[in-house]
């Protein structure tokens, strides 16, 4: 590592001979802009005690001899002053002597800790927390603390590597040649696989190319990837958000109108109770956890509900063990407790939720139909959702706007509620007494009536006394004067009912009046530096920037019908046309005119789901021929890792961009299938290009953290060798492709040639300007004026905007995301640190923090309120409401859009302005959450015998993706996966670092002493864990922290598996995802990797072909075939 151990300063010694004084070193040349302040460097100068120094020469020389100093000075024992060496006297840290300090953001999880990057002599010499950050306050977790090793360590690749088809080794390749080769492959594959029409409809796309990754990249990079791919007609664009938090978007989006966390980390300090469920908060987001600790120190009750007692549980006041995959039963029972005990916050519920709204007469509940809602078609395994709608007149609005529910519900559309609700009946009937049998409140009561403490015990394994304590804590800490927050992560999202997990929490928090209020809310904890950003500016197949859905071939033939179908009649989502047209202007510039519908026809069309798991199937089928990987490692990190590798082995070409040689880059050489003999390197025709990526310290751009907060990180140094930013790669690739296609008259090439693709280049490396890209994202008005917010957007082509929800990030021509006013110099909300969407609001729906009359619910919980004198909303945060709309405003019946929002509609993106207890639209598997068992489960569904699992779940029947028979004894144990503090996701940024590798050096499994007895497992020994998909080995950790659960006399054991390991890097181990299957939530296409079943046996797994035989033996014993587990 190119770091000098101790940098020295020649002229400023901290230990000088002279009188007592203190010197302030102000001359340390810190650079990087006026906003950067050098740390206060105070040097204490020690006074002279031994009176030497004035006479130089012999006496001076002698005086440096420690013995003389000891005998003549005050340090007679020679323990201090007398024995100081010259080196000690002149010692300075490399932070104090650095040439400059550059402001950056940690590249690991989505807490978004501020970092100071210290540069000396053109090299990064130290990376530390930035004390100015209001989120992290200068602190970093072990991963953040290891970023110096991440960015300057020798694990990073430096040059391009090439594997020719059927080749057995990497070969060197010139960067320029590699770029030309990739451009040639893209053009060739695109042409060969171009689909102008599909099933009689125009689709204008290619399914031959896919792109995966983006959550670890900058927003600007995601923007260019999606723009280029869309221009090329590539629809299979996906990133980690699919496999991590896509169900957050659908769950929170349908409930409240936006798919992001409703609150921000710092606000947790104001909670009176925090329920952490489905999250290993302290381990996966340690620096964010400081706000939980802060709340605890202020007296809050912390509850952790989890299959494992982890480092998160250690700090909790109450730990509640739960069977993985049963949270809806648990949360539903709290909902039932609240409803049956009348503990809901009635005034909040009446005014701010849809509790009083009457539902269509044809609606039938799962309680009526034994496990399915009305509209279910067992043939298609899908719902016709029309019966779920509100009861009301079917009015044709003057604008021609009508509700097209049937057309609206197409696969993947649920995520378009990331910032905009689903369309609903205008002016529905309602009953403010909440007694009408078909009002939402009564439907909710009936639906959850059987979710009792007894059911919780039988299903989740939670004793009734413990459950009662949770109910008490949550309800006694909710109301006018107290608030409870929920925090979750992928423990909730990664299920076949992931969306509905989050819906259940949304219902509960709405009933308790905890949304939009300080210390309340639902904190969605995201796990990649910009995974929120890669959802907002999506590299996702079903979304365009700002949660505008990708058009469907069957319904969205032209701009008018498209806008008509996706937008709402009321609220800010009614202006969807402005947002869509402005995006098209940003994409296609001058080519987009009113006459050609602003090039709406250039957008490729969807015909079904094209999630990353569908892409794997397309690869296996030979349909998808080329793929890009941008910092994502599916060979370890995605469900059914073996199928991921087999899919890649069927590609013609693969481009991998990463810091190190991750498993997804080397599977053709040393993957598990090569070792078992299932594949031979010499038989694999995939051409592999490895491009070394630039690190976050080598490029500028924004990350969007888990608070929806955009934070700009400045480049500190230039990348070395062939390392380049993803912005560079995508920009120059696009340039080369466009050069190749220049002059083409093929109409299929029009979209790519019409793209605006002229970004300023900077420096010798010709790095495109991230600043210019962010300006395009922000959007321009007439005359090239940077827009100040999305309300300025127009649908007539006069404005352009790359992502309407990010409009305002460059307000007043200032990069608002780069603002770094220290938290100590502003309010606790810190509105001048970075920029949050929407419109820099930190707590969403904060109108709800005031009562219907606009007064704070209580003094203690005051946040945003109506200032009658000023005629405006005001408070600690920017009001998430129409600025000057009085609380008593009620719109006329014929009002539409923003004008139709009443003074008591805090959920301004929703079609009715309310939080949805019942979701009349937007979801594919039910308007209310229902407990269904996971796909692989040891248990019956005690509620519905006819439907054990979600009947609308997405199954992938493939010989390589077999499911377990329900309740099968061959795979008797529940398996759940989790993160460790010391590692990161699929390991690409942690397993290669010595400082992190040594902290968690081997893959292990956690089992209870009882399970260890049952299966003869030895603590510290080895175990083999087997499912129908594969088998892995792990070191055994026998611990009380994974308690067996007692469920009506039956004992269920659970096994905990960290999922970080793979065969490459410094610390190696088997990936947990060898065990998981591909079975998805129908709303969000997210896999069920948090709950499956397995067997565990003592000892290591077989090597070579024996491994395949072992898995087969288990399958045979369980009687598994391709139809197993496909029951509706």
């Amino acid at each position: 590592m190119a770091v000098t151990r101790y940098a020295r300063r020649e002229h400023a010694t901290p230990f000088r001979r002279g009188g007592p004084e203190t010197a302030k070193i102000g001359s340390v040349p810190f650079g990087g802009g006026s906003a950067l302040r050098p740390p206060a460097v105070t040097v204490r100068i020690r006074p002279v005690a031994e009176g030497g120094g004035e006479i130089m020469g012999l006496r001076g020389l002698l005086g440096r001899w420690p013995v003389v100093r000891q005998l003549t000075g005050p340090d007679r024992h020679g323990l201090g002053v007398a024995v100081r060496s010259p080196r000690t006297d002149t010692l300075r840290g490399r932070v104090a002597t650095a040439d400059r300090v550059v402001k950056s953001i940690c590249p690991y999880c989505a807490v978004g800790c501020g970092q100071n990057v210290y540069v000396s002599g053109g090299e990064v010499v130290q990376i530390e927390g930035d004390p100015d950050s209001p989120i992290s306050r200068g602190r970093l977790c072990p991963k953040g603390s290891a970023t110096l090793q991440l960015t300057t360590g020798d694990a990073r690749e430096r040059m391009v590597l090439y594997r020719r088809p059927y080749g057995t080794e990497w070969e060197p390749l010139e960067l320029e040649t590699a770029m030309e080769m990739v451009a040639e492959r893209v053009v060739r594959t695109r042409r060969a696989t171009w689909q102008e029409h599909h099933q009689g409809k125009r689709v204008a796309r290619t399914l031959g190319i896919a792109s995966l990754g983006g959550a670890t990249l900058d927003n600007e990079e995601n923007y260019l990837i999606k723009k280029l791919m869309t221009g090329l007609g590539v629809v299979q664009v996906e990133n980690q958000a699919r496999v991590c938090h896509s169900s957050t978007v659908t769950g929170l989006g349908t409930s409240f109108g936006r798919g992001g966390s409703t609150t921000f980390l710092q606000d947790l300090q104001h909670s009176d109770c925090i329920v952490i469920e489905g999250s290993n908060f302290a381990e996966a987001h340690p620096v964010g956890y400081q706000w939980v600790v802060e709340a605890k120190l202020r007296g809050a009750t912390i509850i952790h509900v989890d299959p494992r007692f982890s480092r998160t549980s250690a700090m909790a006041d109450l730990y509640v063990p739960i069977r993985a995959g049963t949270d809806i039963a648990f949360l539903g029972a709290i909902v039932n407790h609240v409803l049956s005990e009348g503990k809901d916050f009635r005034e909040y519920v009446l005014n701010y939720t849809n509790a009083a709204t009457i539902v269509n007469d044809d609606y039938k509940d799962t309680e009526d139909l034994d496990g399915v809602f009305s509209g279910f078609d067992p043939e298609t395994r899908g719902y016709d959702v029309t019966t779920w709608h509100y009861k009301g007149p079917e009015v044709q609005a003057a604008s021609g706007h009508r509700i097209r529910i049937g057309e609206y519900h197409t696969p993947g559309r649920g995520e378009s509620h990331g910032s905009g609700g689903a369309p609903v009946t205008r002016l529905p009937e309602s009953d403010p007494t909440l007694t009408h049998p078909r009002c939402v409140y009564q439907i909710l009561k009936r639906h959850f009536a059987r979710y009792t403490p007894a059911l919780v015990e039988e299903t989740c394994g939670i004793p009734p006394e413990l459950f009662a304590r949770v109910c008490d804590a949550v309800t006694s800490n909710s109301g006018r004067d107290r608030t409870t927050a929920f925090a979750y992560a992928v423990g909730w999202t990664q299920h076949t009912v992931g969306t509905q997990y989050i819906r259940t929490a949304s219902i509960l928090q709405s009933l308790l009046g905890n949304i939009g209020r300080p210390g309340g809310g639902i904190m969605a904890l995201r796990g990649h530096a910009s995974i929120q950003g890669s959802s907002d500016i999506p590299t996702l197949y079903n979304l365009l920037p700002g949660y505008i859905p990708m058009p469907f071939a069957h319904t969205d033939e032209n701009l008018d019908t498209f806008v008509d179908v996706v937008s709402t009649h009321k609220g800010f989502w009614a202006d969807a046309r402005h947002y869509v047209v402005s995006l098209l202007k940003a994409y296609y510039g001058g080519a987009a005119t009113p006459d050609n519908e602003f090039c709406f026809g250039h957008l490729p069309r969807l015909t079904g789901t094209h999630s990353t798991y569908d892409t794997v199937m397309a690869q296996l089928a030979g349909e998808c021929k080329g793929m890009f990987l941008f910092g994502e490692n599916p060979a370890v990190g995605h469900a059914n890792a073996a199928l991921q590798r087999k899919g890649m082995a069927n590609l013609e070409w693969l481009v991998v961009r990463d810091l190190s040689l991750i498993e997804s880059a080397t599977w053709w050489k040393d993957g598990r299938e090569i070792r078992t003999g299932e594949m031979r390197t010499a038989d694999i025709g995939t051409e592999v290009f490895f491009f070394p990526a630039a690190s976050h310290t080598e490029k500028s751009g924004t990350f969007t953290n888990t608070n929806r907060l955009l934070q700009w990180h400045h480049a500190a140094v230039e990348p070395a060798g062939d390392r380049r930013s993803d912005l560079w790669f995508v920009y120059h690739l696009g340039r080369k492709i466009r050069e190749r296609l220049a002059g083409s008259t093929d109409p299929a090439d029009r979209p790519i040639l019409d793209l605006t693709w002229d970004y300023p280049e900077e420096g010798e490396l010709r790095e495109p300007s991230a600043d210019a890209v962010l300006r395009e994202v922000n959007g321009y008005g007439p005359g090239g004026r940077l827009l100040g917010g999305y309300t300025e957007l127009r649908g007539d082509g006069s404005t352009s905007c790359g992502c309407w929800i990010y409009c305002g990030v460059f307000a007043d021509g200032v990069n608002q995301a780069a603002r770094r006013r220290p938290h100590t110099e502003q309010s606790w909300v810190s509105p001048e640190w970075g920029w949050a969407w929407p419109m820099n609001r930190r707590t969403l729906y904060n109108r709800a923090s005031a009562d219907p009359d606009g007064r704070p619910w209580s003094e203690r919980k005051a946040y945003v309120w109506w200032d009658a004198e000023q005629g405006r909303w005001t408070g600690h945060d920017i009001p998430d409401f129409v600025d000057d709309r009085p609380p008593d405003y009620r719109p006329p019946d014929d009002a539409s859009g923003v004008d139709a929002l009443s003074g008591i509609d805090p959920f301004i993106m929703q079609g009715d302005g309310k939080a949805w207890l019942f979701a009349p639209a937007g979801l594919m598997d039910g308007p209310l959450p229902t407990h269904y068992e996971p796909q692989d489960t040891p248990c019956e569904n005690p509620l519905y015998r006819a439907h054990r699992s979600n009947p609308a779940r997405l199954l992938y029947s493939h010989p390589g993706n077999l499911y377990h028979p329900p309740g099968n004894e061959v795979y008797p144990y529940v398996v759940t996966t989790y993160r460790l503090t010391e590692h990161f996701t699929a390991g690409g940024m942690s397993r290669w670092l010595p400082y992190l590798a040594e902290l968690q050096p081997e893959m292990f499994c956690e089992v209870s002493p009882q399970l260890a007895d049952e299966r003869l497992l030895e603590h510290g020994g080895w175990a083999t864990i087997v499912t129908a998909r594969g088998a892995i080995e792990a070191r055994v950790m026998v611990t009380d922290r994974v308690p067996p659960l007692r469920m009506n006399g039956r004992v269920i054991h659970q096994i905990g598996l960290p999922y970080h390991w793979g065969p490459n890097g410094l610390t190696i181990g088997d990936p947990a995802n060898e065990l998981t299957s591909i079975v998805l939530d129908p709303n969000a296409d997210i896999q069920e990797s948090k709950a499956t079943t397995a067997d565990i046996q003592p000892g290591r797994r077989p090597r070579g072909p024996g491994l395949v035989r072992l898995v087969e033996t288990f399958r045979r014993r369980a009687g598994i075939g391709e139809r197993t587990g496909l029951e509706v």
Partner: protein
Amino acid sequence: MSERTAEAATRLPQVQEETGYADHPPRMGFFTDTSVCIGCKACEVACKEWNQLPADDPLEFTGMSFDNTGQLSASTWRHVAFIEQRKPMRAPTGAGDDGAGDLRLLMASDVCKHCTDAACLDVCPTGSLLRTEFGTVVVQEDVCNGCGYCVSACPYGVLDKRERDGRVWKCTLCYDRLVDDLTPACAKACPTESIQYGPLDELLERAAARVRDLHEDGVTDARLYGHDPADGVRGNGAFFLLLDRPEVYGLPPAPMDTTRDLPSIWRHAAAAALTLAAGVAAAFALERR
């Protein structure tokens, strides 16, 4: 518990004066509050990153809960211990604690104690070990000859020789940061302020208040360790709030300055030598007669 609190507020000796620093900053140190430690090990990594320490070999699973570091060493100057216990965090209140409710996971970041009476300092024959103007104890890497006397002298087993290098290494309390008024790397990184750095007198007051709060909250196990100038090392420059007896964390319950008895040993040896000499002299004198 009031005696404990009173104890905690006691001031630790300002050792700098004993080592020739006439005018000096207040004695600085660490207060590690293990009751808010989340076991993230940021301290371990931040320490290694700042001090550019080598990673420890071999990469092997220890099975000691989340701890794979094992102990402080020449290359690991912060070590987080994990202790899984069947014991409720709070004293039982009678309300139904069951099953997992009585499980607790204790986490504590250990470090060099920077003793008031530092035996390592006393035994060092080269003057490599040094008391700084902040009252901390550091090894001067340009002076150390690797004799290892300090290794056996340390009552906590902190000092360790790096075999490939031949010298002894330990926590410097980031002396090279303190000279620029910067917080030590571990304390700066700590996400939950479990590791606090500052003037020891202030830290002691804060620690006493924290113990009081925890006791009021029913966490009656909370206690301070290493804060007492009356203990065998006259108190530590790095002291701790623990939730169980020190030995549970692998800390010596009654650490003793291993050189404490040296003067008395020397006195006895001198007396014996004198006696012997006198006897011999007497024998000769008697002989001549």
